C-alpha cells in the first residue's frame, strides 16, 4: 500500500494522526483538538445542519493527510472556516439572536423619557384636598363631604360599589389650574382614575377654582382589603401644583447623589481594606521569598492557589454570598469588592516582589546593614511606586465594579438603578446613567493624572 | 522644467521654515539641496509635491501650477513625481513586493487595488523594478527583514513604479553607512542618466561633489547659494554651515 493511502487511512481513523506521524506535530494535534472540539459542540447542540462542519473537517483532514504524504502542504484556512461557520451558527442559535425582537416603538418609549433626566425640578407648591367615601355601602353611610381651609369637596352618592359611577365635586381650589384626581385605598395605595385606570385623570378648575366630574370606583379598590364586604373609608384626592420659581433637587436626584456617594465610598473602603490584607499576603505569595524550605513553599502554593481561585470569581458573585451573610446594603458590596481586590492586588503585589532587583539588596547588605535596614533601604523603595500604581489602578476598577454590585443587592447606585427599572422610571434611570458616566470619567481622569505623577 | 517662485512656508506654530526661495530646475538635472539640519530642506522638497502646503509663492512644473491644483489634479501630478525618504517609509510588516506595488496606487484600478488584487502587468513591472535595484530575490520577504541599504532600494523601486519624470530624494542616505550611500546614489545617478530629473537633499559634501550637477544651499530657510559644486569654496562653505562647522567639513571632504 502506498504511503499516501496508508496515511490517509490513519487520519480517517484518528483525525490528525496521519499528519502527526509524518512529523507535522502541531498540525496533527491541532486537527485532532479542533475536530473533537467542534464535534463535541455539535453533538451537544445537535442540529443536523451543523454536523456538516465536523464532517467537512474530517474529509479535509483525510485529503490533507493524503497530500501531505505526497509532500504537498495546504493552507489550514479551509477547515478553520468550517469550524468558525459552525461556531457562529451554533452561537447565533444559542444566544437566541433575533433582531426582529428589537421593537423600535418600545425603544423610543424607553428613550424619550431618558432625554429628560430626573435630577432637578422646578420648585412647586402643592394644593391638596381630599374627601372620604365609603366602599362598599353600609346601611347608614355618613355624608361624603369635607371642608377644610376654605375648600370643600363632596361625593354623590355618599358611598359606592366597585365600578359604580360617582359624582365628585370640589371648590375653593386655585382657579384655572390642572388638577389631578386619584383614589386612595384605606391602606394607602394610590389608584388612577383615568382611561383604563392606568392614566391620571387630570382636569382644569374653572375661574372660581371649582370642578365637578364623574369617576368610577376603581376595579382594584378592594384587592388588598381583608374582607371585601366590610365597608371602609376610601379617599378621593384632588391635587394641584404650580411653580414658585427656582429649581430644587428632585427626590430621585437626591437618591442618585446618595447612591453615587455610596458607590465611591464602597470602592474607597474596599480598596483600603484590600491593601491592608493584600500587602502581607503578597509576601507569602512571592516565590523568591518563600521557596527556601518545603514548609514556606507549601504556604506559598496554598496562598497562590487561593488567590487565583478568588481572583477568577467576579466580585458580583462574591457579593451574593455576602448579601446572604450580612444582608442587603453597601456593606455587603464593599466586602465583596474588598475580597476580590485582595486576591487581585495580592497577585500583582507578589509579582512586584518577585521582580525586584537583587542588586540594591546586595549593595545595602554589603555596607553591613541588618535585615530591617535592608528591607527599609533596598526593598521598600523598590516596591512602593509599583504598589501605589497598582492600588490606584485597582481603585479605578473598584469604582466601576461598585456601580454594578448593587444589581445583586450590594448597595450603591446599581441598587437604585435596578429599583428604578423595576418601576419603569426611565427619567430616573437616565439620571443614574449620567451619574455613573460622571463618576467613572472624573475618577478615571484623576487616577490617570495621579499615576502619571507617580511614574 | 520646474520653477520655484518666491516660496515661503510658515508652520502653524510660527516657525518660518522657508523664506522667499526661488530657483529653476531644468529637465535632466541632478540638483542637490544642502544645508544644516533644520535649514528647511525637507520642507522645500515636500512643498514641491505639496505634502506640505507652501504658505506663499508658486511652483510650476511643465507649465502646470502645482500650488493651485485641485485634489484630483494634484494626485495626477504626484504620480509623476517619485519620492525617496530618509527613513525609507516602507510598511514594515508588508512584503517587499506589496511595498513596491503600492507605488502604482496612483494608476491602479481603485476597487481591485483596495482588495489587494493587482494586474499581472503591474506585478511584472514591480519585479523589473526590483531587478533594477538588484533585490529581486527578496520580493516575498517582509520589508523589515531587509537591511537598511536594501530597504532604501525598495524605496527607489517603489518610486520607479510610478514611472516618474521627477524624483525627490530627501536625505536618502542619511541613515546609511558611507559605502551603502554610494551604491544608493549610484542608482539615482543611473536613473538621472536615463532622463529622470532628480532633486536630492544631502548632508555630506563629498557626495555633493561626486553626484550633483547643480547645488542649492539653504540656511535658516533662505537660499544662500546656487551654482555648480565646484563653486563651493571655503568661504561659501562657512557661509552655509557657519564658523564652527570646520571640523565636519574636514571630515567630510
Amino acid at each position, binding site marked *: 500500500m502506498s504511503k499516501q493511502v496508508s496515511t490517509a487511512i490513519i487520519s480517517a481513523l484518528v483525525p490528525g494522526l496521519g499528519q502527526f506521524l509524518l512529523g507535522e506535530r502541531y498540525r496533527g494535534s491541532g486537527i485532532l483538538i479542533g475536530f473533537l472540539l467542534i464535534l463535541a459542540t455539535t453533538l*451537544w447542540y445537535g442540529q443536523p445542519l451543523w454536523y456538516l462542519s465536523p464532517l467537512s473537517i474530517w474529509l479535509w483532514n483525510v485529503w490533507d493527510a493524503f497530500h501531505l504524504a505526497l509532500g504537498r502542504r495546504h493552507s489550514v484556512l479551509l477547515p478553520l472556516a468550517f469550524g468558525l461557520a459552525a461556531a457562529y451558527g451554533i*452561537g447565533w442559535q444559542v*444566544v437566541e439572536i433575533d433582531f426582529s425582537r428589537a421593537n423600535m416603538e418600545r425603544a423610543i418609549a424607553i428613550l424619550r423619557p431618558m432625554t429628560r433626566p430626573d435630577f432637578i425640578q422646578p420648585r412647586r407648591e402643592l394644593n391638596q384636598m381630599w374627601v372620604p367615601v365609603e366602599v362598599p355601602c353600609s346601611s347608614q353611610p355618613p355624608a361624603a363631604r369635607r371642608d377644610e381651609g376654605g375648600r370643600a369637596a363632596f361625593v354623590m352618592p355618599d358611598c359606592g360599589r366597585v365600578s359604580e359611577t360617582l359624582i365628585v365635586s370640589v371648590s375653593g381650589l386655585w382657579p384655572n389650574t390642572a388638577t389631578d384626581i386619584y383614589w386612595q385605598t384605606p391602606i394607602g395605595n394610590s389608584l388612577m382614575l383615568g382611561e383604563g385606570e392606568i392614566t391620571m385623570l387630570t382636569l382644569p378648575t374653572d375661574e372660581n377654582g371649582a370642578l365637578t366630574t364623574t369617576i368610577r370606583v376603581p376595579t382594584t379598590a378592594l384587592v388588598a382589603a381583608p374582607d371585601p364586604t366590610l365597608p371602609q373609608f376610601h379617599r378621593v384626592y384632588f391635587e394641584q401644583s404650580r411653580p414658585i420659581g427656582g429649581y430644587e433637587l428632585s427626590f430621585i436626584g437626591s437618591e442618585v447623589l446618595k447612591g453615587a456617594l455610596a458607590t465611591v465610598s464602597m470602592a474607597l473602603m474596599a480598596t483600603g481594606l484590600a491593601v491592608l490584607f493584600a500587602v502581607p499576603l503578597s509576601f507569602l505569595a512571592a516565590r523568591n521569598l518563600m521557596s527556601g524550605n518545603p514548609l514556606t513553599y507549601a504556604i506559598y502554593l496554598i496562598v497562590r492557589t487561593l488567590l487565583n481561585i478568588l481572583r477568577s470569581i*467576579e466580585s*458580583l*458573585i462574591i457579593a451574593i454570598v455576602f448579601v446572604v451573610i450580612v444582608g442587603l446594603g453597601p*456593606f455587603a458590596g464593599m466586602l465583596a469588592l474588598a475580597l476580590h481586590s485582595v486576591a487581585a492586588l495580592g497577585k500583582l503585589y507578589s509579582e512586584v516582589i518577585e521582580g525586584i532587583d537583587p542588586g540594591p539588596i546586595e549593595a545595602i547588605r554589603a555596607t553591613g546593614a541588618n535585615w530591617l535596614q535592608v528591607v527599609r533601604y533596598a526593598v521598600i523603595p523598590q516596591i512602593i511606586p509599583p504598589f501605589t500604581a497598582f492600588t490606584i489602578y485597582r481603585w479605578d476598577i473598584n469604582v466601576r465594579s461598585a456601580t454594578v454590585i448593587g444589581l445583586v443587592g450590594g448597595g450603591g447606585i446599581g441598587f437604585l438603578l435596578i429599583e428604578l427599572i423595576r418601576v419603569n422610571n426611565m427619567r430616573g434611570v437616565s439620571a443614574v*446613567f449620567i451619574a455613573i458616566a460622571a463618576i467613572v470619567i472624573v475618577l478615571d481622569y484623576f487616577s490617570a493624572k495621579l499615576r502619571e505623577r507617580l511614574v | 522644467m520646474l520653477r520655484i517662485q518666491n516660496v515661503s512656508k510658515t508652520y502653524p506654530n510660527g516657525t518660518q521654515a522657508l523664506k522667499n526661495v526661488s530657483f529653476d530646475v531644468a529637465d535632466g538635472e541632478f540638483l542637490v539641496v544642502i544645508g544644516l539640519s533644520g535649514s528647511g530642506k525637507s520642507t522645500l522638497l515636500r512643498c514641491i*509635491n505639496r505634502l506640505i502646503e507652501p504658505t506663499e509663492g508658486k511652483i510650476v512644473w511643465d507649465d502646470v501650477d502645482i500650488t493651485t491644483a485641485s485634489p484630483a489634479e494634484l494626485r495626477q501630478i504626484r504620480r509623476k513625481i517619485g519620492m525617496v525618504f530618509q527613513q525609507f517609509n516602507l510598511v514594515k510588516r508588508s512584503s517587499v513586493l506589496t511595498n513596491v506595488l503600492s507605488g*502604482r496606487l496612483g494608476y491602479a484600478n481603485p476597487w481591485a487595488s483596495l482588495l489587494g488584487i493587482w494586474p499581472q502587468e503591474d506585478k511584472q513591472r514591480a519585479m523589473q523594478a526590483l531587478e533594477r535595484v538588484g533585490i529581486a530575490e527578496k520580493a516575498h520577504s517582509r520589508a523589515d527583514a531587509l537591511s537598511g541599504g536594501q530597504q532604501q532600494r525598495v524605496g527607489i523601486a517603489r518610486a520607479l513604479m510610478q514611472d516618474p519624470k521627477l524624483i525627490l530624494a530627501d536625505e536618502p542616505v542619511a541613515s546609511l553607512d558611507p559605502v551603502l550611500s554610494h551604491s544608493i546614489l549610484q542608482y539615482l545617478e543611473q536613473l538621472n542618466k536615463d532622463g529622470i530629473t532628480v532633486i536630492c537633499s544631502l548632508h555630506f559634501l563629498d557626495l555633493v561633489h561626486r553626484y550633483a550637477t547643480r547645488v542649492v544651499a539653504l540656511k535658516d530657510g533662505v537660499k544662500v547659494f546656487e551654482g555648480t559644486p565646484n563653486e563651493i569654496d571655503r568661504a561659501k562653505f562657512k557661509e552655509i554651515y557657519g564658523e564652527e562647522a570646520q571640523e565636519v567639513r574636514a571630515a567630510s571632504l
Partner: protein
Amino acid sequence: MPLPRLLRNTLITALVIAAFVISYRVTEADFPRLLRDLPKGRELLTAFLTPDIVQRDLETRTISIAFPIPCGSAAVEDSPPSQGPRLVPGVNCAAPLEKFTLEGFDLQPNSEVVIRWRLPNERTMTAIRTQTDAKGYFRQEVQARPIQATVNGIPSRLEVDTLTPVGGLKPSQALKDVMDNMFVTIFMALLSTTLATLIAAPLSFLAASNITRKGCIGTAVYYAFRSFFNLMRSYDPLVMATVFGFWLSFGPFPGFLALTVVTIASLGKLFSEAVENIDPGPVEALQAVGAPSLHTVRYAVVPQVIPDFVSYIIYHWDINVRISTIIGFVGGGGIGYYLNLSINDFKWNQAGTAIWAIVIVVWMMDFLSAEVRKRLT
C-alpha cells in the same frame, strides 16, 4: 522638610482620613456583625465546595392505603398483610385536625420517603419527606386536615413513595444544565466580541486624530466618535444589560447586545490609539505616490495596526467571557442566570457547580489568551 510641603502633606493626609471616615459611615460598615454572622457563610461555603456533579438514578416504588376522614365516611382498608411492604397508620380513620402516626414496614432500606395525600379528585397534596432505616422502617407523625375529607364516599388515600438510588454514578442534571448555560455564555462572548470588532474596527479610524482630524468636518467627526467611545466605555456591560433587558425582555440576546455596545466603545478606543501610534512615514510615502486616501489607509495604516488589533481582540474576548458569566444576573442569560436562579432557590450545591464551572472557564480563557498573545509578539 520645608513648611509648605509639610502643610500640604498634612492636609492630604487629613483629607484621605476624612474620606475614609465618610466612606465607613456611608457603607454602613458593621464588622462585628460580619464576625457574628460569618458562620452563616460556612453552610454556603461547604455547599460550594461540594458541588452537585454526579447523581444516581432513583427507583421509585409507591404503596398507598385508603384513609377515611372523618371516621365512617367510607370503608376502612382491610387490615394490612403482616408481611411485605406495608403502611400501618396508628388509627384506621381520623377526625379532621386529628394527629396520628404512620409507620411503614419492610420498605426499601435506606431510602428517601415521600408521604402525600391523594385526594378523592386525584389531586395530591402535602408532601412530607423522611428516610427509612436499614430495615426499611419509618415512622412519621401525620395530621388529617378538613380538605382531605371523603367526598361522595371516596376517601383520600395516603401514598408513600420510596426513592432508592440504583445503578452507578452519572453526571447530574445540574452539571448538564451548567454545561448548557456555559455554552450560552461562551458563545455570547464570542459573538459579541466578533460583532463589536466588525463595527469598532472601521469606526476606530474615524476616532484617530492622524486620520480624521483634518478640516472642520473631520474634527467634528473625530470628537464625536471619541466622546461616544469614552462615554459608552464608562458603563459596565451589566448596567447596559439592565436597560437592554428592559427593552428586549430577558434572555441571552439583550445580554449579547449590551456586551457588544460596551465592547465596541472599549475596542474602538484601543483601536484608535493603535492607529494614532503608527509610523507616519508610509502614509506620507503613499500620499506622495498619488494614492487616494482610502488606499493610503488600506496600504499604509492597516498592515501596521493588525498585530495590535488582534492582541486587543483576544484580550477583550477574555474579558467578555468573564463578563458574560455574570451578565445573566440582570437577566442576560447564560451561566449567570442559572447561578442566580440556583441562589434564589437556595440550591447551594447547584450554585457551587456553576461557580466551579466559571472558575475553570475563566482560568482556561486567561491561560489561552495569554499564550496566544505571547505568540503574537
